[in-house]
Protein backbone atom coordinates (compact mmCIF):
# COMPACT_ATOMS: atom_id res chain seq x y z
CA UNK A 1 0.00 0.00 0.00
CA UNK A 2 1.23 3.48 -0.85
CA UNK A 3 0.18 6.95 0.23
CA UNK A 4 -3.42 7.12 1.48
CA UNK A 5 -5.98 8.80 -0.74
CA UNK A 6 -8.14 11.77 0.15
CA UNK A 7 -11.87 11.42 0.92
CA UNK A 8 -13.95 13.70 -1.28
CA UNK A 9 -17.70 14.01 -1.80
CA UNK A 10 -18.14 14.22 -5.57
CA UNK A 11 -20.39 13.06 -8.40
CA UNK A 12 -19.67 10.27 -10.89
CA UNK A 13 -18.95 12.87 -13.57
CA UNK A 14 -16.47 14.61 -11.27
CA UNK A 15 -14.89 11.29 -10.27
CA UNK A 16 -14.18 10.59 -13.93
CA UNK A 17 -12.69 14.07 -14.40
CA UNK A 18 -10.46 13.64 -11.32
CA UNK A 19 -9.33 10.23 -12.58
CA UNK A 20 -8.49 11.70 -15.97
CA UNK A 21 -6.39 14.42 -14.31
CA UNK A 22 -4.54 11.74 -12.31
CA UNK A 23 -3.92 9.71 -15.48
CA UNK A 24 -2.11 12.66 -17.14
CA UNK A 25 -3.41 12.43 -20.71
CA UNK A 26 -1.64 14.61 -23.30
CA UNK A 27 -4.76 15.41 -25.30
CA UNK A 28 -8.46 15.68 -24.47
CA UNK A 29 -10.84 16.05 -27.35
CA UNK A 30 -14.49 16.22 -26.42
CA UNK A 31 -17.91 17.62 -27.17
CA UNK A 32 -20.36 18.16 -24.28
CA UNK A 33 -23.60 16.19 -24.03
CA UNK A 34 -25.93 15.61 -21.07
CA UNK A 35 -25.26 13.75 -18.74
CA UNK A 36 -21.52 13.73 -19.51
CA UNK A 37 -21.20 17.54 -19.59
CA UNK A 38 -19.83 18.08 -16.09
CA UNK A 39 -16.93 15.71 -16.81
CA UNK A 40 -15.67 17.62 -19.83
CA UNK A 41 -16.30 20.99 -18.16
CA UNK A 42 -14.19 19.98 -15.16
CA UNK A 43 -11.39 18.66 -17.35
CA UNK A 44 -11.48 21.89 -19.35
CA UNK A 45 -11.11 23.83 -16.06
CA UNK A 46 -8.17 21.63 -15.01
CA UNK A 47 -6.39 22.40 -18.29
CA UNK A 48 -7.21 26.12 -17.91
CA UNK A 49 -5.90 26.31 -14.32
CA UNK A 50 -2.79 24.33 -15.24
CA UNK A 51 -3.44 21.42 -12.88
CA UNK A 52 -3.62 19.15 -15.94
CA UNK A 53 -0.91 19.81 -18.48
CA UNK A 54 -2.66 18.77 -21.65
CA UNK A 55 -4.04 20.07 -24.91
CA UNK A 56 -7.84 20.44 -24.76
CA UNK A 57 -9.44 20.40 -28.19
CA UNK A 58 -12.87 22.05 -28.31
CA UNK A 59 -14.37 20.32 -31.32
CA UNK A 60 -17.70 20.84 -33.06
CA UNK A 61 -19.13 17.33 -32.81
CA UNK A 62 -18.61 13.86 -31.42
CA UNK A 63 -17.49 12.61 -34.81
CA UNK A 64 -14.77 15.28 -34.74
CA UNK A 65 -13.99 14.52 -31.09
CA UNK A 66 -13.05 10.94 -31.87
CA UNK A 67 -11.41 11.84 -35.19
CA UNK A 68 -9.16 14.36 -33.42
CA UNK A 69 -8.46 11.87 -30.62
CA UNK A 70 -7.44 9.36 -33.26
CA UNK A 71 -5.05 11.89 -34.79
CA UNK A 72 -3.52 12.62 -31.39
CA UNK A 73 -3.18 8.92 -30.60
CA UNK A 74 -1.52 8.44 -33.99
CA UNK A 75 1.45 10.55 -32.85
CA UNK A 76 1.68 8.62 -29.59
CA UNK A 77 -0.33 10.88 -27.27
CA UNK A 78 -2.29 9.54 -24.31
CA UNK A 79 -5.79 10.64 -25.20
CA UNK A 80 -9.20 10.97 -23.52
CA UNK A 81 -12.69 11.67 -24.77
CA UNK A 82 -16.19 11.31 -23.38
CA UNK A 83 -19.66 11.05 -24.81
CA UNK A 84 -23.19 9.70 -24.35
CA UNK A 85 -26.22 8.45 -26.25
CA UNK A 86 -26.72 10.05 -29.70
CA UNK A 87 -23.20 11.44 -29.36
CA UNK A 88 -21.80 7.92 -29.26
CA UNK A 89 -23.85 6.97 -32.30
CA UNK A 90 -22.66 10.06 -34.18
CA UNK A 91 -19.12 9.00 -33.26
CA UNK A 92 -19.74 5.38 -34.27
CA UNK A 93 -18.18 5.64 -37.71
CA UNK A 94 -14.81 6.39 -36.16
CA UNK A 95 -14.81 3.67 -33.46
CA UNK A 96 -13.58 0.77 -35.62
CA UNK A 97 -10.95 3.09 -37.13
CA UNK A 98 -9.50 3.51 -33.64
CA UNK A 99 -9.70 -0.14 -32.61
CA UNK A 100 -8.35 -1.37 -35.95
CA UNK A 101 -5.42 1.06 -35.79
CA UNK A 102 -4.80 -0.26 -32.25
CA UNK A 103 -4.85 3.13 -30.55
CA UNK A 104 -5.49 2.80 -26.79
CA UNK A 105 -7.87 5.77 -26.44
CA UNK A 106 -9.90 5.81 -23.23
CA UNK A 107 -13.46 7.09 -23.46
CA UNK A 108 -16.10 7.66 -20.80
CA UNK A 109 -19.64 6.95 -21.94
CA UNK A 110 -22.44 8.26 -19.73
CA UNK A 111 -25.13 5.70 -20.50
CA UNK A 112 -28.23 7.43 -21.81
CA UNK A 113 -31.07 6.07 -23.89
CA UNK A 114 -31.56 6.68 -27.60
CA UNK A 115 -34.19 8.72 -29.44
CA UNK A 116 -37.05 8.55 -30.43
CA UNK A 117 -38.70 9.58 -28.09
CA UNK A 118 -35.85 11.94 -27.27
CA UNK A 119 -35.01 11.42 -23.61
CA UNK A 120 -32.25 12.20 -21.16
CA UNK A 121 -32.24 9.35 -18.68
CA UNK A 122 -30.24 6.19 -18.49
CA UNK A 123 -30.27 2.80 -20.13
CA UNK A 124 -27.64 0.79 -22.01
CA UNK A 125 -28.93 1.03 -25.56
CA UNK A 126 -26.16 3.43 -26.58
CA UNK A 127 -23.05 1.47 -25.62
CA UNK A 128 -24.48 -1.99 -26.31
CA UNK A 129 -25.13 -0.89 -29.90
CA UNK A 130 -21.33 -0.59 -30.23
CA UNK A 131 -20.31 -4.02 -28.91
CA UNK A 132 -18.95 -4.96 -32.32
CA UNK A 133 -16.76 -1.87 -32.69
CA UNK A 134 -13.67 -3.64 -31.35
CA UNK A 135 -13.50 -1.65 -28.10
CA UNK A 136 -13.17 -3.03 -24.58
CA UNK A 137 -16.30 -2.18 -22.55
CA UNK A 138 -16.65 -2.03 -18.78
CA UNK A 139 -19.78 -1.05 -16.77
CA UNK A 140 -19.44 0.60 -13.33
CA UNK A 141 -21.62 0.35 -10.23
CA UNK A 142 -20.57 3.50 -8.37
CA UNK A 143 -18.40 6.61 -8.62
CA UNK A 144 -15.40 4.93 -6.98
CA UNK A 145 -15.42 2.12 -9.50
CA UNK A 146 -15.74 4.66 -12.33
CA UNK A 147 -12.72 6.55 -11.03
CA UNK A 148 -10.68 3.40 -10.55
CA UNK A 149 -11.63 2.00 -13.95
CA UNK A 150 -10.53 5.16 -15.81
CA UNK A 151 -7.10 4.74 -14.22
CA UNK A 152 -7.01 0.98 -14.89
CA UNK A 153 -8.35 1.51 -18.42
CA UNK A 154 -5.16 3.27 -19.51
CA UNK A 155 -2.99 0.51 -18.06
CA UNK A 156 -4.99 -2.24 -19.76
CA UNK A 157 -5.51 -0.44 -23.09
CA UNK A 158 -1.84 0.60 -23.41
CA UNK A 159 -0.47 -2.83 -22.48
CA UNK A 160 1.62 -3.96 -25.49
CA UNK A 161 -0.33 -7.25 -25.51
CA UNK A 162 -3.62 -5.35 -25.74
CA UNK A 163 -3.31 -2.02 -27.61
CA UNK A 164 -7.08 -1.68 -27.81
CA UNK A 165 -9.33 1.29 -27.00
CA UNK A 166 -11.37 1.19 -23.81
CA UNK A 167 -14.91 2.48 -23.08
CA UNK A 168 -15.78 3.08 -19.42
CA UNK A 169 -19.57 3.14 -18.99
CA UNK A 170 -21.44 4.71 -16.14
CA UNK A 171 -25.19 5.13 -15.86
CA UNK A 172 -26.33 8.62 -16.70
CA UNK A 173 -27.68 10.63 -13.73
CA UNK A 174 -27.84 7.57 -11.44
CA UNK A 175 -24.03 7.68 -11.30
CA UNK A 176 -23.02 10.82 -13.22
CA UNK A 177 -25.18 13.16 -11.10
CA UNK A 178 -25.12 11.39 -7.73
CA UNK A 179 -22.64 12.66 -5.14
CA UNK A 180 -20.95 10.17 -2.85
CA UNK A 181 -17.73 9.81 -0.95
CA UNK A 182 -14.84 8.73 -3.13
CA UNK A 183 -11.29 7.93 -2.18
CA UNK A 184 -9.19 10.14 -4.45
CA UNK A 185 -5.82 8.42 -4.94
CA UNK A 186 -2.55 10.25 -4.38
CA UNK A 187 -0.90 11.39 -7.62
CA UNK A 188 2.39 9.65 -6.79
CA UNK A 189 0.59 6.31 -6.47
CA UNK A 190 -1.14 6.77 -9.80
CA UNK A 191 2.20 7.72 -11.37
CA UNK A 192 3.69 4.52 -10.00
CA UNK A 193 0.78 2.44 -11.32
CA UNK A 194 0.51 4.21 -14.67
CA UNK A 195 3.83 5.22 -16.23
CA UNK A 196 3.88 7.58 -19.25
CA UNK A 197 2.64 6.04 -22.51
CA UNK A 198 5.36 4.92 -24.90
CA UNK A 199 4.59 3.16 -28.16
CA UNK A 200 6.16 2.30 -31.49
CA UNK A 201 2.67 2.41 -33.03
CA UNK A 202 2.83 6.08 -34.01
CA UNK A 203 3.81 8.47 -36.74
CA UNK A 204 7.50 9.22 -36.33
CA UNK A 205 9.71 11.29 -38.65
CA UNK A 206 12.75 9.21 -37.63
CA UNK A 207 10.95 5.97 -38.31
CA UNK A 208 8.43 6.66 -41.06
CA UNK A 209 5.58 4.21 -41.45
CA UNK A 210 1.90 4.27 -42.25
CA UNK A 211 -0.72 4.11 -39.54
CA UNK A 212 -4.46 3.56 -40.03
CA UNK A 213 -3.40 1.24 -42.83
CA UNK A 214 -5.31 0.38 -45.93
CA UNK A 215 -5.51 -3.30 -46.80
CA UNK A 216 -7.06 -5.41 -49.50
CA UNK A 217 -6.39 -9.11 -49.20
CA UNK A 218 -4.70 -8.74 -45.77
CA UNK A 219 -7.78 -7.30 -44.11
CA UNK A 220 -8.88 -10.58 -42.59
CA UNK A 221 -5.54 -11.17 -40.86
CA UNK A 222 -5.56 -7.67 -39.37
CA UNK A 223 -9.01 -8.30 -37.94
CA UNK A 224 -8.13 -11.76 -36.63
CA UNK A 225 -5.06 -10.30 -34.89
CA UNK A 226 -7.45 -7.95 -33.08
CA UNK A 227 -9.51 -10.94 -31.97
CA UNK A 228 -6.47 -12.92 -30.84
CA UNK A 229 -5.21 -9.97 -28.80
CA UNK A 230 -8.67 -9.34 -27.33
CA UNK A 231 -8.55 -12.93 -26.04
CA UNK A 232 -5.49 -11.96 -23.96
CA UNK A 233 -7.36 -9.09 -22.31
CA UNK A 234 -8.97 -11.15 -19.49
CA UNK A 235 -5.53 -12.19 -18.28
CA UNK A 236 -4.27 -8.61 -18.42
CA UNK A 237 -7.37 -7.36 -16.54
CA UNK A 238 -6.63 -9.88 -13.79
CA UNK A 239 -2.96 -8.86 -13.55
CA UNK A 240 -3.74 -5.14 -13.56
CA UNK A 241 -6.50 -5.51 -10.95
CA UNK A 242 -4.13 -7.39 -8.65
CA UNK A 243 -1.49 -4.70 -8.94
CA UNK A 244 -4.12 -1.97 -8.46
CA UNK A 245 -5.29 -3.69 -5.30
CA UNK A 246 -1.73 -3.82 -4.01
CA UNK A 247 -1.33 -0.06 -4.37
CA UNK A 248 -4.85 1.28 -3.78
CA UNK A 249 -6.48 -1.47 -1.72
CA UNK A 250 -9.54 -1.95 -3.94
CA UNK A 251 -10.62 -4.64 -6.39
CA UNK A 252 -13.82 -5.41 -8.25
CA UNK A 253 -13.89 -9.11 -9.12
CA UNK A 254 -12.44 -9.26 -12.63
CA UNK A 255 -14.77 -9.82 -15.57
CA UNK A 256 -17.76 -10.92 -13.46
CA UNK A 257 -18.21 -10.23 -9.76
CA UNK A 258 -20.03 -13.09 -8.01
CA UNK A 259 -22.19 -12.26 -4.97
CA UNK A 260 -23.71 -15.17 -3.00
CA UNK A 261 -23.56 -17.42 -6.08
CA UNK A 262 -21.90 -20.53 -4.56
CA UNK A 263 -25.05 -22.20 -3.25
CA UNK A 264 -27.65 -20.15 -5.12
CA UNK A 265 -30.65 -21.86 -6.72
CA UNK A 266 -31.35 -18.72 -8.75
CA UNK A 267 -28.86 -16.13 -9.95
CA UNK A 268 -29.58 -12.73 -11.49
CA UNK A 269 -27.02 -11.11 -13.79
CA UNK A 270 -26.87 -7.33 -13.99
CA UNK A 271 -24.84 -4.53 -15.55
CA UNK A 272 -24.04 -1.17 -13.97
CA UNK A 273 -25.66 0.73 -11.11
CA UNK A 274 -28.80 -1.43 -10.78
CA UNK A 275 -26.47 -4.07 -9.33
CA UNK A 276 -26.53 -2.13 -6.06
CA UNK A 277 -30.30 -2.46 -5.73
CA UNK A 278 -30.03 -6.20 -6.51
CA UNK A 279 -27.31 -6.51 -3.85
CA UNK A 280 -29.61 -5.01 -1.19
CA UNK A 281 -32.44 -7.38 -2.19
CA UNK A 282 -30.17 -10.44 -2.20
CA UNK A 283 -29.07 -9.50 1.34
CA UNK A 284 -32.71 -9.22 2.46
CA UNK A 285 -33.80 -12.48 0.80
CA UNK A 286 -30.80 -14.39 2.13
CA UNK A 287 -31.87 -13.30 5.64
CA UNK A 288 -35.18 -15.00 4.88
CA UNK A 289 -33.35 -18.17 3.86
CA UNK A 290 -33.95 -17.77 0.11
CA UNK A 291 -31.08 -19.14 -1.96
CA UNK A 292 -30.60 -16.26 -4.39
CA UNK A 293 -27.39 -14.91 -5.87
CA UNK A 294 -26.15 -12.09 -8.04
CA UNK A 295 -23.52 -11.83 -10.74
CA UNK A 296 -22.39 -8.40 -11.90
CA UNK A 297 -21.19 -8.56 -15.49
CA UNK A 298 -18.47 -5.92 -15.52
CA UNK A 299 -17.01 -6.42 -18.97
CA UNK A 300 -19.18 -6.88 -22.07
CA UNK A 301 -16.09 -6.99 -24.33
CA UNK A 302 -14.17 -9.16 -23.96
CA UNK A 303 -17.28 -11.17 -23.05
CA UNK A 304 -16.88 -13.36 -19.94
CA UNK A 305 -18.39 -16.47 -21.54
CA UNK A 306 -16.46 -18.99 -19.41
CA UNK A 307 -17.30 -17.21 -16.14
CA UNK A 308 -20.99 -17.02 -17.04
CA UNK A 309 -21.07 -20.68 -18.10
CA UNK A 310 -19.41 -21.55 -14.79
CA UNK A 311 -22.08 -19.75 -12.77
CA UNK A 312 -24.85 -21.24 -14.93
CA UNK A 313 -23.57 -24.78 -14.38
CA UNK A 314 -24.02 -24.33 -10.65
CA UNK A 315 -27.57 -23.00 -10.46
CA UNK A 316 -31.12 -23.96 -11.45
CA UNK A 317 -32.40 -20.67 -12.84
CA UNK A 318 -30.57 -17.69 -14.26
CA UNK A 319 -32.00 -14.27 -15.00
CA UNK A 320 -30.41 -11.59 -17.14
CA UNK A 321 -31.57 -8.04 -16.44
CA UNK A 322 -31.19 -6.02 -19.63
CA UNK A 323 -31.56 -2.24 -19.63
CA UNK A 324 -31.84 -2.43 -23.42
CA UNK A 325 -33.90 -4.25 -26.01
CA UNK A 326 -32.95 -5.39 -29.47
CA UNK A 327 -36.38 -4.77 -30.98
CA UNK A 328 -37.53 -7.90 -32.76
CA UNK A 329 -35.67 -10.31 -30.47
CA UNK A 330 -34.63 -9.88 -26.82
CA UNK A 331 -32.11 -8.12 -24.59
CA UNK A 332 -28.58 -7.87 -25.97
CA UNK A 333 -26.90 -9.08 -22.79
CA UNK A 334 -29.28 -12.06 -22.72
CA UNK A 335 -28.38 -13.08 -26.29
CA UNK A 336 -24.70 -12.97 -25.36
CA UNK A 337 -25.14 -14.82 -22.07
CA UNK A 338 -27.36 -17.56 -23.49
CA UNK A 339 -24.83 -18.22 -26.22
CA UNK A 340 -22.24 -18.81 -23.47
CA UNK A 341 -24.56 -21.03 -21.43
CA UNK A 342 -25.76 -23.31 -24.25
CA UNK A 343 -22.32 -24.97 -24.23
CA UNK A 344 -22.82 -26.57 -20.82
CA UNK A 345 -24.34 -30.01 -20.23
CA UNK A 346 -27.42 -29.16 -18.16
CA UNK A 347 -28.13 -25.47 -18.56
CA UNK A 348 -30.41 -23.69 -16.05
CA UNK A 349 -33.76 -22.16 -16.97
CA UNK A 350 -32.96 -18.74 -18.41
CA UNK A 351 -35.22 -15.71 -18.23
CA UNK A 352 -34.62 -12.30 -19.75
CA UNK A 353 -35.92 -9.40 -17.67
CA UNK A 354 -36.06 -6.11 -19.55
CA UNK A 355 -36.42 -3.01 -17.42
CA UNK A 356 -35.19 0.47 -16.69
CA UNK A 357 -35.58 1.65 -20.28
CA UNK A 358 -35.32 5.42 -20.59
CA UNK A 359 -34.46 5.63 -16.89
CA UNK A 360 -37.61 3.88 -15.58
CA UNK A 361 -37.03 3.18 -11.89
CA UNK A 362 -36.28 -0.41 -10.86
CA UNK A 363 -37.32 -0.47 -7.21
CA UNK A 364 -36.37 -2.99 -4.54
CA UNK A 365 -39.92 -4.37 -4.85
CA UNK A 366 -39.44 -4.84 -8.62
CA UNK A 367 -36.16 -6.58 -7.89
CA UNK A 368 -37.77 -8.86 -5.33
CA UNK A 369 -40.41 -9.87 -7.90
CA UNK A 370 -37.62 -10.70 -10.37
CA UNK A 371 -35.97 -12.98 -7.81
CA UNK A 372 -39.35 -14.54 -6.91
CA UNK A 373 -39.92 -15.37 -10.58
CA UNK A 374 -36.43 -16.88 -10.79
CA UNK A 375 -37.09 -19.03 -7.71
CA UNK A 376 -40.32 -20.25 -9.33
CA UNK A 377 -38.36 -21.11 -12.48
CA UNK A 378 -35.81 -22.94 -10.31
CA UNK A 379 -38.70 -25.11 -9.07
CA UNK A 380 -39.61 -25.93 -12.65
CA UNK A 381 -42.41 -23.48 -13.38
CA UNK A 382 -42.74 -22.55 -17.03
CA UNK A 383 -43.25 -19.04 -18.31
CA UNK A 384 -42.27 -16.40 -20.84
CA UNK A 385 -38.62 -16.24 -21.89
CA UNK A 386 -38.65 -12.42 -22.12
CA UNK A 387 -40.43 -10.47 -19.37
CA UNK A 388 -40.81 -6.71 -18.95
CA UNK A 389 -40.23 -5.15 -15.54
CA UNK A 390 -42.62 -2.50 -14.27
CA UNK A 391 -44.03 -1.71 -17.73
CA UNK A 392 -47.40 0.01 -17.94
CA UNK A 393 -48.59 -1.87 -21.03
CA UNK A 394 -48.88 -5.51 -22.16
Amino acid at each position, binding site marked *: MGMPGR*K*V*FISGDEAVAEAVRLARPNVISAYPITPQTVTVERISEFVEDGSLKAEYLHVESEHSAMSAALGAAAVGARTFTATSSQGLLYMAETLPYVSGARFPIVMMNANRTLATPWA*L*LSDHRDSLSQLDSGWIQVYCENAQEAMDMIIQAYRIAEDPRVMTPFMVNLDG*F*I*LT*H*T*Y*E*MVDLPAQENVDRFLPPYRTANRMDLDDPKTVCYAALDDYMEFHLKQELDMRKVPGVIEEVELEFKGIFGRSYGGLVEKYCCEDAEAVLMTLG*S*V*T*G*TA*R*AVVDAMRMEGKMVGLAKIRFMRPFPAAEIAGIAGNTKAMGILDRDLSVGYEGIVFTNARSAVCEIESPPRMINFIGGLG*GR*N*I*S*KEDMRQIFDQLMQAARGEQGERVRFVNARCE
Partner: protein
Amino acid sequence: MFEIRWHGRGGQGCFTVARLLGMAASVHEGKYSLAFPSFGPERRGAPVLGFTRISVTPITDRSMVDQCDYVVILDETLVGPSSLAGIRDGGVLVINTKVPESYVPMTNRLIVGIDATSIAMDVLGRPITNTAMLGALVAVSGVVSLSSVQKALRQSMDPSMAEKNCTLVAKAYELKKEDRFHGKTTGS
Protein backbone atom coordinates in the same frame (compact mmCIF):
# COMPACT_ATOMS: atom_id res chain seq x y z
CA MET B 1 -31.11 4.82 6.88
CA PHE B 2 -32.31 8.42 6.82
CA GLU B 3 -33.95 9.62 3.63
CA ILE B 4 -34.47 13.34 3.15
CA ARG B 5 -36.24 15.07 0.25
CA TRP B 6 -35.66 18.74 -0.48
CA HIS B 7 -38.12 20.92 -2.42
CA GLY B 8 -37.15 24.22 -3.95
CA ARG B 9 -37.05 26.11 -7.22
CA GLY B 10 -34.18 26.08 -9.67
CA GLY B 11 -31.61 28.63 -8.43
CA GLN B 12 -32.54 28.47 -4.71
CA GLY B 13 -29.71 26.08 -3.84
CA CYS B 14 -31.96 23.14 -3.06
CA PHE B 15 -29.56 20.51 -4.38
CA THR B 16 -26.56 22.37 -2.94
CA VAL B 17 -27.82 21.75 0.60
CA ALA B 18 -28.76 18.14 -0.20
CA ARG B 19 -25.10 17.73 -1.17
CA LEU B 20 -23.71 19.69 1.82
CA LEU B 21 -25.66 17.43 4.17
CA GLY B 22 -24.26 14.34 2.44
CA MET B 23 -20.75 15.76 2.70
CA ALA B 24 -21.20 16.55 6.39
CA ALA B 25 -22.40 12.99 7.10
CA SER B 26 -19.79 11.12 5.06
CA VAL B 27 -16.60 13.18 4.96
CA HIS B 28 -16.96 14.59 8.48
CA GLU B 29 -18.79 11.87 10.40
CA GLY B 30 -17.65 8.66 8.69
CA LYS B 31 -21.17 7.68 7.65
CA TYR B 32 -22.27 6.71 4.16
CA SER B 33 -24.26 9.09 2.03
CA LEU B 34 -25.68 9.66 -1.43
CA ALA B 35 -26.95 13.06 -2.60
CA PHE B 36 -28.68 13.54 -5.93
CA PRO B 37 -31.03 15.94 -7.71
CA SER B 38 -34.23 15.05 -9.53
CA PHE B 39 -32.91 13.65 -12.79
CA GLY B 40 -33.53 15.40 -16.08
CA PRO B 41 -33.64 18.93 -17.49
CA GLU B 42 -32.93 21.87 -15.18
CA ARG B 43 -34.52 25.34 -15.37
CA ARG B 44 -34.31 28.38 -13.11
CA GLY B 45 -37.53 28.92 -11.20
CA ALA B 46 -38.98 25.50 -11.96
CA PRO B 47 -39.78 23.17 -9.03
CA VAL B 48 -36.77 20.94 -8.33
CA LEU B 49 -36.03 18.17 -5.87
CA GLY B 50 -32.91 17.14 -4.00
CA PHE B 51 -32.39 13.90 -2.14
CA THR B 52 -29.99 12.86 0.62
CA ARG B 53 -29.61 9.28 1.85
CA ILE B 54 -27.55 8.74 5.01
CA SER B 55 -26.68 5.44 6.65
CA VAL B 56 -24.13 3.94 9.02
CA THR B 57 -23.67 1.03 6.58
CA PRO B 58 -22.73 1.27 2.87
CA ILE B 59 -25.63 2.30 0.63
CA THR B 60 -25.85 0.16 -2.49
CA ASP B 61 -29.49 0.75 -3.48
CA ARG B 62 -29.74 3.53 -6.05
CA SER B 63 -33.41 3.26 -6.90
CA MET B 64 -35.60 6.35 -6.51
CA VAL B 65 -36.40 7.59 -3.01
CA ASP B 66 -40.01 6.59 -2.44
CA GLN B 67 -40.66 7.27 1.27
CA CYS B 68 -38.77 9.91 3.28
CA ASP B 69 -38.13 10.56 6.94
CA TYR B 70 -37.87 14.32 6.41
CA VAL B 71 -39.16 16.67 3.75
CA VAL B 72 -37.70 20.17 3.65
CA ILE B 73 -39.54 22.86 1.66
CA LEU B 74 -37.47 25.95 0.87
CA ASP B 75 -40.28 27.78 -0.93
CA GLU B 76 -43.72 27.53 0.62
CA THR B 77 -45.48 28.07 -2.71
CA LEU B 78 -44.44 24.44 -3.33
CA VAL B 79 -46.49 23.02 -0.45
CA GLY B 80 -49.07 20.79 -2.09
CA PRO B 81 -50.09 17.19 -2.78
CA SER B 82 -46.76 16.19 -4.37
CA SER B 83 -44.53 17.74 -1.69
CA LEU B 84 -46.70 16.31 1.09
CA ALA B 85 -46.68 12.77 -0.36
CA GLY B 86 -44.18 10.00 0.36
CA ILE B 87 -43.44 10.84 4.01
CA ARG B 88 -43.08 7.89 6.40
CA ASP B 89 -45.15 7.46 9.57
CA GLY B 90 -43.46 9.64 12.16
CA GLY B 91 -41.85 11.70 9.39
CA VAL B 92 -41.46 15.46 9.67
CA LEU B 93 -42.02 18.38 7.30
CA VAL B 94 -39.75 21.38 7.70
CA ILE B 95 -41.25 24.39 5.91
CA ASN B 96 -39.91 27.90 5.32
CA THR B 97 -42.95 29.84 6.52
CA LYS B 98 -44.27 32.41 8.97
CA VAL B 99 -47.55 30.49 9.28
CA PRO B 100 -46.89 26.77 9.85
CA GLU B 101 -50.30 26.28 11.42
CA SER B 102 -51.95 27.03 8.07
CA TYR B 103 -50.52 23.78 6.67
CA VAL B 104 -51.71 21.54 9.52
CA PRO B 105 -55.06 20.68 7.87
CA MET B 106 -53.21 19.43 4.76
CA THR B 107 -51.25 16.58 6.39
CA ASN B 108 -51.16 14.28 9.40
CA ARG B 109 -47.39 14.57 9.58
CA LEU B 110 -45.58 16.77 12.10
CA ILE B 111 -44.81 20.25 10.73
CA VAL B 112 -41.89 22.38 11.86
CA GLY B 113 -41.98 25.93 10.54
CA ILE B 114 -39.15 28.41 10.39
CA ASP B 115 -39.11 31.89 8.89
CA ALA B 116 -35.88 31.22 7.04
CA THR B 117 -36.38 34.09 4.60
CA SER B 118 -36.27 36.70 7.40
CA ILE B 119 -33.23 35.07 9.04
CA ALA B 120 -31.40 34.91 5.69
CA MET B 121 -32.22 38.58 5.02
CA ASP B 122 -30.74 39.46 8.46
CA VAL B 123 -27.51 37.52 7.95
CA LEU B 124 -26.91 37.52 4.19
CA GLY B 125 -29.00 40.48 3.13
CA ARG B 126 -30.51 38.22 0.46
CA PRO B 127 -33.43 35.76 0.54
CA ILE B 128 -31.23 32.70 0.00
CA THR B 129 -32.72 30.24 2.46
CA ASN B 130 -31.08 26.93 1.69
CA THR B 131 -28.47 26.91 4.46
CA ALA B 132 -30.96 28.21 7.05
CA MET B 133 -33.25 25.30 6.14
CA LEU B 134 -30.30 22.93 6.48
CA GLY B 135 -29.71 24.32 9.99
CA ALA B 136 -33.37 23.78 10.86
CA LEU B 137 -33.33 20.21 9.52
CA VAL B 138 -30.18 19.36 11.47
CA ALA B 139 -31.70 20.84 14.65
CA VAL B 140 -34.93 18.91 14.27
CA SER B 141 -33.44 15.60 13.10
CA GLY B 142 -30.02 15.38 14.72
CA VAL B 143 -28.96 13.44 11.63
CA VAL B 144 -25.55 15.15 11.73
CA SER B 145 -23.97 17.64 14.11
CA LEU B 146 -24.00 21.40 13.56
CA SER B 147 -20.21 21.45 13.51
CA SER B 148 -20.06 18.85 10.70
CA VAL B 149 -22.36 21.05 8.62
CA GLN B 150 -20.14 24.05 9.29
CA LYS B 151 -17.06 22.07 8.24
CA ALA B 152 -18.80 21.09 5.00
CA LEU B 153 -19.70 24.76 4.37
CA ARG B 154 -16.11 25.88 4.93
CA GLN B 155 -14.91 23.16 2.57
CA SER B 156 -17.31 24.19 -0.19
CA MET B 157 -17.47 28.00 -0.18
CA ASP B 158 -15.04 30.87 -0.26
CA PRO B 159 -14.11 32.01 3.27
CA SER B 160 -16.33 35.11 3.66
CA MET B 161 -19.39 33.36 2.22
CA ALA B 162 -18.67 30.29 4.35
CA GLU B 163 -18.53 32.33 7.58
CA LYS B 164 -21.83 34.09 6.83
CA ASN B 165 -23.49 30.77 6.08
CA CYS B 166 -22.01 29.17 9.21
CA THR B 167 -23.62 31.99 11.23
CA LEU B 168 -26.90 31.53 9.39
CA VAL B 169 -26.95 27.75 9.92
CA ALA B 170 -26.17 28.19 13.63
CA LYS B 171 -28.94 30.78 14.02
CA ALA B 172 -31.55 28.50 12.43
CA TYR B 173 -30.22 25.59 14.48
CA GLU B 174 -30.55 27.50 17.76
CA LEU B 175 -34.10 28.52 16.92
CA LYS B 176 -35.21 24.95 16.21
CA LYS B 177 -33.09 22.72 18.44
CA GLU B 178 -35.81 22.60 21.12
CA ASP B 179 -38.18 21.13 18.53
CA ARG B 180 -36.41 17.82 18.19
CA PHE B 181 -38.80 14.93 18.92
CA HIS B 182 -41.56 17.31 20.06
CA GLY B 183 -44.88 16.05 18.75
CA LYS B 184 -46.27 19.44 17.86
CA THR B 185 -46.48 22.04 15.16
CA THR B 186 -44.09 24.87 15.79
CA GLY B 187 -43.26 28.24 14.32
CA SER B 188 -40.38 30.62 14.89
